[in-house]
C-alpha cells in the first residue's frame, strides 16, 4: 500500500470516478485553472477539460443550484465549496432543494450530487472562516453527511459518495489535507454509514470524527502512559450514523466521551449522547461526557484559538471524569 496525503486521496477518488462515469463533473470556485484553492483538484482540468472541470464565479447559491438541476436530469455533479463556510449562502439549495426533491417529487427525481470542500476550524483565519458546520447538515433528512478523518477513509468514502444516488455533504478536514495514511492502490469503496474503530481499548470509548479523531488518538497515547486503554471510534459518516458499532464499543467499555470541534449547544455530539444512553443505559458506569469547542465565535489570536478548541488535555480530563479519577 502507498502512503499518500488526504489531499491526494481525494484527488484520486475524483479522477477515478470521472474516468469511470462520463456524467460526473466538478464545478466550483478555482477548481480548474487555479488547480483548487486547496489544490485538491490539482491537474484535473488538464486531464478532463473545461467541459468537466468547471470554474465557477463567486455564486455559491447559483452553482450549487445548477448542480441540483443537473443532477435532476441525470448528471452526477461534484460541487466544491472553497470552504464549507461559504456553503451557508447556498444552504437553501442544499436543504430546500437537494435534500427534499426526492421526497417532494414522490420518488420521481433523485439527486445524485456531492457537495464537498474543507470544513471545520482552520488556523488563525477568524470566526467567519473557522467553524464546524456539520451539525447544520446532519439535522436534515434526505442528506448524507460524510466526514473522513484519514486519507484512506477520504478516498473510499468519496468514491462511494460520487456513486450514491442521494445528495451527500462531504466535509473534509481543512487541517487534514497534508496528513498521510496507507491507501490501497486497488479500488476500494468504503460504504457510507459504517463506523471504524481507529484504536482498540477496553476502559473508555472516545467517539470523534474528522480532525478530532487525531486529537483522540493523541489523547489515547497519553492515557496509555497511565494504564488507561481508550477505544477510539470514528463514525466516519454522521448521517446515517452507525449507532450499533458505537453502542457496541460503549457497552464494552461502559464509559463514553464524545469529542467534537463544534459548538456545544445542539451540536451533533448531543445526538450521539442521546443515542448512546438510549442503547447502552444498562452498561454505562458513568455519565456520558462531551468535549466541544467553547460556546464562542472563533477568535483570531493563536493562543485564544487553541484555548477555544478541544485539546488533548481536555480529552484526557474528560476521560478521567468518566473514570472517576
Amino acid at each position, binding site marked *: 500500500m502507498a502512503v499518500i496525503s488526504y489531499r491526494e486521496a481525494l484527488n484520486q477518488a475524483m479522477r477515478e470516478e470521472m474516468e469511470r462515469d462520463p456524467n460526473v*463533473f466538478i464545478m466550483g470556485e478555482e477548481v480548474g485553472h487555479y488547480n483548487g484553492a486547496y489544490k485538491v483538484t490539482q491537474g484535473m482540468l488538464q486531464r478532463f477539460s473545461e*467541459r468537466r472541470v*468547471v470554474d*465557477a*464565479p463567486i*455564486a455559491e*447559491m*447559483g*452553482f*450549487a*443550484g*445548477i*448542480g*441540483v*438541476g*443537473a*443532477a*435532476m*436530469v*441525470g*448528471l452526477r455533479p461534484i460541487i466544491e465549496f472553497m470552504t464549507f463556510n461559504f456553503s451557508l*449562502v447556498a444552504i*437553501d*439549495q442544499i436543504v*430546500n*432543494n437537494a435534500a427534499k*426533491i*426526492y*421526497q*417532494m*417529487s*414522490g*420518488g*420521481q*427525481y*433523485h439527486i445524485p450530487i456531492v457537495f464537498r470542500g474543507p470544513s471545520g476550524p482552520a488556523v488563525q483565519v477568524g470566526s467567519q472562516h473557522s467553524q464546524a458546520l456539520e451539525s447544520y447538515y446532519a439535522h436534515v*433528512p*434526505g442528506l*448524507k453527511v460524510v466526514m473522513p478523518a484519514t486519507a484512506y477513509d477520504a478516498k473510499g468514502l468519496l468514491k462511494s459518495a460520487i456513486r450514491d*444516488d*442521494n445528495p451527500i455533504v462531504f466535509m473534509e478536514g481543512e487541517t487534514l489535507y497534508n496528513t498521510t495514511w496507507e491507501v490501497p492502490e486497488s479500488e476500494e469503496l468504503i460504504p457510507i454509514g459504517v463506523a471504524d474503530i481507529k484504536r482498540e481499548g477496553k476502559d473508555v470509548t472516545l467517539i470523534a470524527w474528522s480532525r478530532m479523531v487525531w486529537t483522540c488518538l493523541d489523547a489515547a497515547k497519553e492515557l496509555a502512559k497511565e494504564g488507561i486503554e481508550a477505544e477510539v471510534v470514528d463514525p466516519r459518516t454522521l448521517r*446515517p450514523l452507525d449507532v450499533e458499532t458505537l453502542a457496541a464499543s460503549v457497552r464494552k467499555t461502559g464509559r463514553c466521551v464524545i469529542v467534537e470541534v463544534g459548538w456545544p449547544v445542539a451540536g451533533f455530539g448531543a445526538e450521539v449522547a442521546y443515542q448512546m444512553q438510549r442503547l447502552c443505559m444498562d452498561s454505562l458506569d458513568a455519565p456520558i461526557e462531551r468535549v466541544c469547542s467553547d460556546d464562542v465565535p472563533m477568535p483570531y489570536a493563536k493562543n485564544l484559538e487553541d484555548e477555544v478548541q478541544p485539546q488533548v488535555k481536555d480529552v484526557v480530563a474528560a476521560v478521567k471524569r468518566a473514570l472517576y479519577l
Partner: protein
Amino acid sequence: MATASISTPDSKRIEHHDHDELVETTSEELAPLYRQMLAIRRLEEASAKAYSQGKIGGFLHLIIGQEAVCVGAIAALQPKDYVVATYREHGHAYAKGVPARPIMAELYGKKTGLVKGLGGSMHLFDKSTNFLGGYGIVGGHVPIAAGAAFASKYRGDGAVTLCFFGEGASTIGGFAEGLALAALWKLPVVLICENNQYSMGTPLYRSLAVEDVSLRALAHGMARDRFDGDDVVKVKRRIAEAVERARTTGEPTLVEVVTYRFRGHSMSDPGLYRTKDEVEEWKRRDPLNRCRERLVQLGFPETELTALEDDVKAEIEDAVKFSEESPPADEYFPYVIKEG
C-alpha cells in the same frame, strides 16, 4: 397606475391591447390553446371551491388571469424540453401535459396525487413530461433551471429549459445568480418573468427601482424581450423566438411578460391592496375571453366551441370526482433516501 419608478431610455414599451395588431393565427392553432387555458381556469376554480370546503389545505396560489402565459410559452416547446416553475404552477404542469386528475388529487393530498400527496399545491413534479417541479422558495429554482440547461449543453441533447418566476423573484439572489451563470456559460434556458405586478401585496413601484425586469439582461449581454401577456398566440410566438435562440445558439433569453392575477396572492388574501376598478379593468381584458372571441372571429363553429367547453367541464368534474374518491396518502418514508 401610480408609479415612482425610474424609466430608462432602454425600457421596452408595452403596447397595450391593440386589437388591430393581432398576431396571425388559425383556429387550428388557437383551439387547443383555448382548451388548455379554459381547463386551467376551470381547474383553478374547482380547487378554490374545494379549498373553501376544507378539502384542500395549506397554501393555494391560483393563476386565474395569467393562463395565457404558461399556455402560450409551453406551446412553443418540444416534449423533451424542461419546465421549472414556482409554487403557482398548476397551470404550467397542465400545459406541459400533466392530466387534471393527478394534479387535483395532489391538491387533495391523496395517494393518487401526482407526487403521492407528498408535495401538495406548491410542489408538483412529473418526470414523464419533463416537468421539473414547483418550488416554494422564491427565486431558488432559477439556478435549478440553469442546471437542467447546463446538463443539456453538457450532453448536447438539444433540449431547452423554460423557467417561470414572478417579478417578485427579481430582487432575490437566486435569480441574480441563476441569470449571471446562464449568461456566462451560455446555457439554453429561457427565463420567463411572469410580471403580475404584485409581489404578494406589494406593487411594482414599491419593490423595484426600475420596473422593467427585462433590463437585467443588459448587464449580462443577454437577449431580452418584454411584452404583454394577454394574447396567448403572441406569447407563443415571442417565446418561440427565445426557444429557437436557445436551441440553435445555446444562448439564454430573459423574457418579461406583463400579466395580472385576478385573485389574491393565495386563498387567504382578499387583495385589499388593489382597487376594485383596477381589477375590473383587467378582467375586461381577460385573456381567456379574448381567446374565445378570437376563435369565433376565425370562424370556429359555435357547436364545436360548445363541445370543447363541455368536454373541459367534464374533464375537471372527473378530476374532482377522482380526487374525492381516491384513497388518502399513506406513505412518507420510502422517498427520503434512495436505496442502491
